[in-house]
């Protein structure tokens, strides 16, 4: 907890910057300088040790599907995309990200399937997707 007095978040990985970098193909996590815990930005305090100092860490984008679904009844704004797959992907580094799954046949989706990050833009906004490893 003493870490919290040592200064503000130093990672510089705001939500906006994370997605700006993701759009360029780079995934950036944050690592707690106090205890080494890896997290997905943005976070102010480390949920493990309470420290307030982070450093940016490049993520490989390689992982496996932990769970998945195919959205067939979509929200108004995404209705034109349906059906589309969404998966929770556990990255090699240990953090998980939710993303669309692209270029994988819907019937080939499976828990444990290796996938790799790729950037997409949905309705003019950068978003996370995964394609075949």
């Amino acid at each position, binding site marked *: 907890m003493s870490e919290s007095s040592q200064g503000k978040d130093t990672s510089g990985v705001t939500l906006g910057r994370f997605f700006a970098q993701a759009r360029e193909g780079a995934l950036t996590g944050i690592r707690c300088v106090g205890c080494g815990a890896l997290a997905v930005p943005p976070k102010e305090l480390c949920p493990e040790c309470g420290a307030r100092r982070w450093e940016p860490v490049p993520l490989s984008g390689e992982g496996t599907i932990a769970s998945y679904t195919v959205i067939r*009844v979509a929200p108004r704004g995404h209705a034109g995309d349906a059906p589309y797959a969404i998966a929770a992907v556990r990255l090699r580094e240990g953090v998980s990200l939710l993303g*669309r799954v692209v270029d994988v046949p819907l019937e080939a989706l499976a828990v444990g399937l290796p996938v790799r990050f790729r950037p997409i833009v949905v309705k003019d906004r950068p978003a996370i997707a995964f394609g075949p490893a």
Partner: protein
Amino acid sequence: MRRVAVIGVGVTQFGRHERTSAELFAEAAADALADAEMPAARVQALYYGNVVGGETEKQLHTGPQAASVLGIPTVPTTRFETACASSHAAFRHAVMEIASGASDVVLVGGAERVLNVPTADSTEYFAYASDASWEQTLGLTFPGVFALVARAHMHKYGTTEEKMAAVAVKNNKHGVLNPKAQFRKEITLDTVLKSPMVADPLKLYDCCPFTDGGAALVLVSEEVARRSRRPIWVLASAAASDWMLIGDKRDLSRVPATERAAAAAYRQAGIGPHDVDVVELHDCFTIAEIVATEGLGLFEPGAGGLAAEKGWTSLGGQIPVNPSGGLKAKGHPIGATGAAQICEVVTQLRGEAGPRQVEGARRGLTHTLGGNTATVLVSLFGRE
């Protein structure tokens, strides 16, 4: 802390309404006050749940609006929003207001109006309860959230689509016995399994409906309760939260907030899961009931589906779950749901549930989940 009791309950018909959410709440609240034989002038505060009023009715500040329509405009009113758990969160805070000695008579309730907009719009508005940057951008829906839970549960425990469907069949069967329910029709396993896919593996009949409705209850201190005809005591009310992002949740086959809220509630009440006779829990999707029965400690992890399939959670079973028909058949007016669940358990513990009565029920539990499993409330009730 002072003891707190529920002495009046009121629930509107669930389904499609042509009235505003404030009007629906007012009907339920007036019924609850009449049931409690409590003059409106004695109400000292209103704790109110409403979720998508800003979207479906272009209405914020819904608390004072609801109080005004009821006819108690000068009562201090606060609106709670914890997604689908909103009026249960309102309830917990009202319990604390009375337990602390600040008030003796508090009105709690909620209402929602969603069937006045098309399904694609309500689907979008409900999705606002997931993260805007990480999840809404992907087109994640609430069936999608619970589909991820279902797939993880299937992978870990071998839960089948048939076991999930058994929950829908059971709750629809219960709903037939509830005159306030949105759906009062039995369905077969085949109907569920052959219904259109919404978010694999969840099909239309795995999902609760969109619903308009209101619910309310009168909460009082022990001193006031002692002068009422049939008080039902609040034994515990606990809340828990969890990571907002699906990606930050470590094991999608579980809902840790349910486990934490349940543990806290059992500790407060000094009882365990096997001391409970009747349960109203958050079956927004069939898999949600399975995971909730496990998280509440009613069954071992992985055994929730079997419990539904074997009839252990049916009326007449070892622990009846959702005798009202649950969100699945009774309906899910999201801002009203937590209060409506409490109204059902109070009715059960009074022994006034008619054909859906759980015989001899002495203690009851309500469980309400908000959003992408990031909010859970659990409360316990007793006849003594």
